[in-house]
């Protein structure tokens, strides 16, 4: 609540600063507006930024450091009987102090109650001083920025450079996310690699995490060769793409080249619904409709088909990712310059000849991009595989057998029942890291290829 009031006050100051800056600029300009380098509103923005940025930064810093600061201060000033507690007990006591102070729980002893009062008053004092500093900074920033307004001030350039700093910062979020992902995987992965050699993990061909769950149990030792998982991922993603790419591409071609605009404007969003259906639905569909169908069909043909087959999961996943191919390819096909089509028609090519031999090659980079996105989605999918392809890590290229994928294993390993520091759980992190590295490399290669292609056209 206090924080809310402070923020509101700062926001009010900021908007006030905007007004001040604008009016000041107008005053400086006098009757000739063009004597100003920048528009009055840019002067307003600049004052608002000077007023707001430092103050908000202080508040943000306070929010980030308050807990540890409070902790240090309160612990340092604990009553004697609490101060001599062992570390764990101290942590508990501090926790109780916090609960008492913040949630109003009854205190278990007088010392606690006293510490809680100390905590509360400290917290209040700190907040008030931070609030004072923030407001002072805001006012000072406002005043300083206002004082510096003159006709030649390049307010617009300044505001724009601040905005471009924000833009650059936004684009680094992707980088930081990547770093964050790597960091949140790497430590546990290292622990895993202390137990399982990297070479076994990367090149081993047997994935069988059947190890004892309890130490008093003598279970078999597991093996952690990730090759079957990556092979399974390839197989299932391959089947999915084998469904989605032809269907999606043909649908895209039909929509962009043959269909009436009205047909297209209805069908395209409808197909996009396929991507929005929760994957559980696909999972049930694959496991209860498609898989038995394939099994029965296989039995009729005299093939041995596992109840859980890569084929069933892959087929259904393929349906799910159709819109990625169809919608994005539709866009790029429509963007192929008309002159190329005319070139082919002018030679007496039929529509399909033009499409197959001229339009598609020209749209290839974009189509590859859409397939990449679809493949990304296929690689990341869990539910369908768990439900329809099982969890058995067979190293096989036979789509009629059960296989499993990396993502699926990551999820089952993470939510399983095993000890959290057993290689079984840690393997999830190593798998995540390996998958991350592999897709990163693939994307790098894909970008190169696409760039190369692109250079050839314009």
């Amino acid at each position, binding site marked *: 609540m206090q924080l809310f009031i402070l923020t509101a006050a700062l926001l009010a100051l900021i908007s006030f600063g905007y007004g001040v800056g604008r009016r000041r600029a107008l005053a400086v300009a006098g009757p000739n507006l063009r004597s100003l380098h920048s528009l009055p509103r840019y002067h307003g923005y600049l004052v608002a930024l000077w007023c707001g940025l430092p103050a908000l930064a202080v508040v943000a810093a306070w929010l980030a450091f308050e807990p540890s600061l409070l902790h240090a201060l309160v612990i340092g000033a604990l009553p004697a009987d609490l101060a001599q507690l062992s*570390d*764990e*007990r101290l*942590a*508990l006591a501090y*926790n*109780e102090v*916090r*609960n008492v102070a913040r*949630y109003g*729980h009854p205190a*278990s002893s007088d010392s606690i109650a006293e510490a809680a009062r100390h905590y509360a008053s400290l917290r209040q004092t700190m907040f008030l001083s931070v609030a004072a500093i923030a407001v002072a900074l805001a006012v000072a920033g406002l005043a300083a920025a206002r004082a510096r307004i003159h006709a030649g001030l390049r307010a617009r350039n300044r505001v724009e450079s601040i905005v471009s700093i924000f833009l650059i910062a936004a684009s680094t979020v992707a980088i930081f996310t990547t770093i964050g992902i790597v960091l949140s995987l790497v430590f546990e992965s290292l622990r895993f690699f202390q137990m399982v050699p990297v070479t076994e993990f990367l090149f081993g061909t047997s994935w*069988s*995490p*059947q*190890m*004892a*769950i*309890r*130490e008093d*149990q*003598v*279970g*078999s*030792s*597991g093996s952690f060769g990730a090759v079957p998982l990556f092979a399974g991922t390839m197989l299932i993603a391959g089947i999915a793409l084998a469904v989605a790419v032809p269907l999606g591409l043909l649908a895209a071609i039909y929509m962009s080249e043959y269909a009436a605009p009205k047909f297209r404007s209805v069908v395209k969003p409808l197909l996009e619904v396929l991507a929005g259906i929760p994957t559980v639905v696909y*999972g*049930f569909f694959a*496991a*209860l409709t498609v898989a*038995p169908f394939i*099994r029965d069909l296989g039995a009729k043909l005299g093939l041995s088909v*596992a*109840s*859980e087959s890569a084929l069933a999961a892959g087929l259904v996943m393929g349906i799910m990712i159709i819109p990625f191919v169809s919608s994005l390819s539709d866009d790029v096909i429509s963007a192929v310059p008309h002159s190329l089509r005319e070139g082919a028609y002018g030679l007496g090519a039929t529509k399909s000849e033009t499409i197959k031999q001229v339009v598609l090659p020209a749209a290839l980079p974009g189509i590859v991009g859409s397939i990449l996105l679809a493949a990304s989605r296929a690689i990341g999918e869990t539910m369908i595989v*768990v*439900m329809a392809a*099982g*969890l*058995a*890590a*067979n190293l096989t290229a036979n789509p009629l*057998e*059960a296989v*499993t994928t990396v993502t699926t294993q990551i999820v*089952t*390993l*993470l*939510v*399983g*029942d*095993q*000890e*959290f*520091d*057993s290689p*079984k*759980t840690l393997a999830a992190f190593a798998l995540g890291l390996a998958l991350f590295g592999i897709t990163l490399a693939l994307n790098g290669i894909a970008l190169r290829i696409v760039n190369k292609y692109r250079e050839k056209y314009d």
Partner: protein
Amino acid sequence: RDQIRVVGSSTVYPFTTAVAEQFGKGGKFKTPVVESTGTGGGMKLFCSGVGPDFPDLTNASRRIKSSEVEFCAKNGVADIVEMKIGYDGIALANSKKAKRVHFTRNHLFLALAKDVPQGGKLVPNPYTMWNQIDPSLPAAKIEVLGPPPTSGTRDSFNEMVMEGGCKSNADMKALNLDDKAHAKACMTIREDGGYVEAGENDNLIVQKLDANPAAVGVFGYSYLEQNADKIQGSFIDGIEPTFDTIASGKYPVSRAMFVYAKKAHVGQIPGIKEFLAEYTSEKAWGKTGYLSDKGLVPMVDAERKEWATKINGLENLKM
């Protein structure tokens, strides 16, 4: 935080949530939040520390391990109250469209182990049809849908069915393996398709059985109870999985369910004591309590009484 937080096993989840709902309806406290994270994940969260950022209770479909107790202690979670809440039977079942099966644990061991003893040594499991093991079994492909090795149910299945079957197997005894090799041979499940790791969604297994009458599924007893019109439990060693056979301990495949509470939070997070009292009340975990409606198999009266005293007295966990 003025709300109890529970994490842990997905198997115990239906029971703890039922208690939580009842507890919340009492109106004195907020309804506890119960997460389904798996036993291991729950333990990690539970043991990570004391304070409102950490859960107050964790569900477990097995007993806590000493390494976990140590980890807890390291993070200041020294005093833990152990609460055994009852049993969950693990049923083997198949579709009602097929005939009911009578297994012995030896059958199951021979059908599902990776290596089986034959001619005085261990050979890769040669059986593909049930009736190859015993002519009394159906002439169907061996296809068992069960939990993956990461699941607690699988662990219990290994211990009670596989190890049990293994011990009763004369050929196995004749091999005279050392303890470790013996255990390994007993507990390693085949990976050639006879056993299908079907994920943790038991409803899906039930529906798959319905669609595939040749298959046998392994899952929690409550799912069998709810779907008794579609599937039938198989006899194991002559015992059918029913509420009574499990409760009396006659049915050989059942495991204890636990909930662990953080003593340090008692009195700090409002309602923990009352929640434990609700859990251990007769109307909850009693013979005809609402938990039994949810499929929990209660302990026998004496055991219940003993645990209730221990729990409500906040007795410390002893390993």
